[in-house]
């Protein structure tokens, strides 16, 4: 993986994904290792995303790297009309690796082609967010002890959620049975469903959340946004159907874990937080270990 950019989840093979997850496990045991002391990590956030940026900066800093960069386009030369190409070429001179987030789809792929250093995509518009996918895989593997042959439910906005799309793609490598729970208006796009069909994996589409809860090992919740509906009345009709409450979990499997990419609004009620099956905050913490693993592997300080 040395010097390899990570733009899309499929840029890395299944074996490389597993290697990252193993490395992340080692960093979880020993998060502070000064193995990147001679390195400079640039975090270029062309749009603000405090959560993702802090996670990367925490990962880099715990490994002893120096972090440079900007936190939104306004504080960079982008507002002066500089092209993305020029920004990336310039920053390449100052760092050993670029972490970037950008509002346009395809920006990270383009940056990886012009940069002289590897690029990690921290989100390019609605397209990809591979480090989120890897931390999701890490969380699933850690809580279930394996990635293969699991029953995974995705709940909520399956149409627009890039987190869901990438994770579905990634899980297609692991003989997953998919349970897709969403209102009619927000079903998983056929282009993503194609991945499941290509692998001949089982998937079940539901509109009722209750009926899938007893069947699954992972319940991956997402937020349904009002602005996704052409008719606000359609939103009103479904908005309460995809809220997870603690009392709904009574018939669930012992090993069930509830995941969510955060931030949550109201799709998981607060009383679920007390349940040992709630995993979303730990899931976010796992992001730091996964990002440590990626930085270390791509910079070539670990094999």
């Amino acid at each position, binding site marked *: 993986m040395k010097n390899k950019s990570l733009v899309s989840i499929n840029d890395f093979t299944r074996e490389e994904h597993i290697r990252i997850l193993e490395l992340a496990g080692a960093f979880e045991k020993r998060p502070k290792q000064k193995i990147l002391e001679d390195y400079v990590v640039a975090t270029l956030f062309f749009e603000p995303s405090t959560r993702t940026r802090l996670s990367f900066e925490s990962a880099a800093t715990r490994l002893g790297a120096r972090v440079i960069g900007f936190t939104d386009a306004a504080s960079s030369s982008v507002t002066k009309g500089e092209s993305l190409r020029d920004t990336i070429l310039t920053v390449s001179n100052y760092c050993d690796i670029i972490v970037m987030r950008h509002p346009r*789809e395809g920006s990270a792929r*383009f940056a990886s082609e012009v940069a002289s250093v590897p690029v990690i995509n921290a989100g390019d518009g609605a397209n990809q967010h591979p480090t989120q996918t890897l931390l999701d895989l890490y969380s699933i593997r850690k809580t279930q002890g394996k990635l293969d042959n699991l029953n995974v439910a995705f709940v909520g906005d399956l149409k627009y959620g890039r987190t869901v799309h990438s994770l579905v793609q990634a899980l297609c490598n692991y003989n997953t049975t998919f349970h897709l729970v969403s209102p009619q208006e927000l079903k998983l796009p056929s282009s993503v469903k194609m991945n499941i069909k290509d692998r001949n994996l089982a998937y079940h589409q539901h509109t009722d959340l209750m009926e899938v809860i007893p069947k699954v090992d992972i319940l991956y919740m997402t937020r349904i946004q009002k602005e996704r509906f052409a008719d606000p009345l359609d939103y009103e009709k479904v908005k309460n159907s995809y809220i997870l409450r603690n009392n709904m979990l009574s018939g669930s499997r012992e090993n069930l874990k509830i995941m969510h990419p955060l931030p949550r609004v109201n799709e998981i009620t607060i009383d679920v937080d007390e349940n040992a099956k709630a995993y979303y905050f730990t899931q976010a913490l796992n992001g730091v270990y996964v990002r440590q693993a990626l930085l270390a592997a791509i910079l070539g300080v670990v094999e």
Partner: protein
Amino acid sequence: MEKEEVRKELKVSAIENGTVIDHIPSESVFQVIKILNLSEYKEQLLIATNLDSQKMGKKGIIKVSNKFFKSDDINKIALVAPSATLIIINNFAVTEKKQVEVPGHVEKIVKCFNPNCITNNEDISTRFTVIDKKELKLSCHYCEKITARGNMAFR
């Protein structure tokens, strides 16, 4: 293609040297002219549409004097008129005939339909992988979205 038919048409309006684009669906003739920028062409140009064709019912044909298209242009033709045939004429004689073919990769000529794609917002050439030649589906190398026949535009 029916040899008789070709000879007859070439006789009617033969060109000495150049390219005949035959078997264009009638409704695509003006699109072919547009994407090849032929409305600006300064030499002899013969355009016919709604001709009878055994193979296609109705077809269009474009004859371009002293023009031999490069692969970029040939690819463009394939994207709007996959049934088209190119006939190369030298000295009033047919020296080569080829069926246009949808390429595996398309660069520069097609616009990505996704308005939020980086190629529509910075000065960047587009790149696509053709994932379905029959239905004409192009997957953007950058934003990974699919541009299909119905929403295809040319740069």
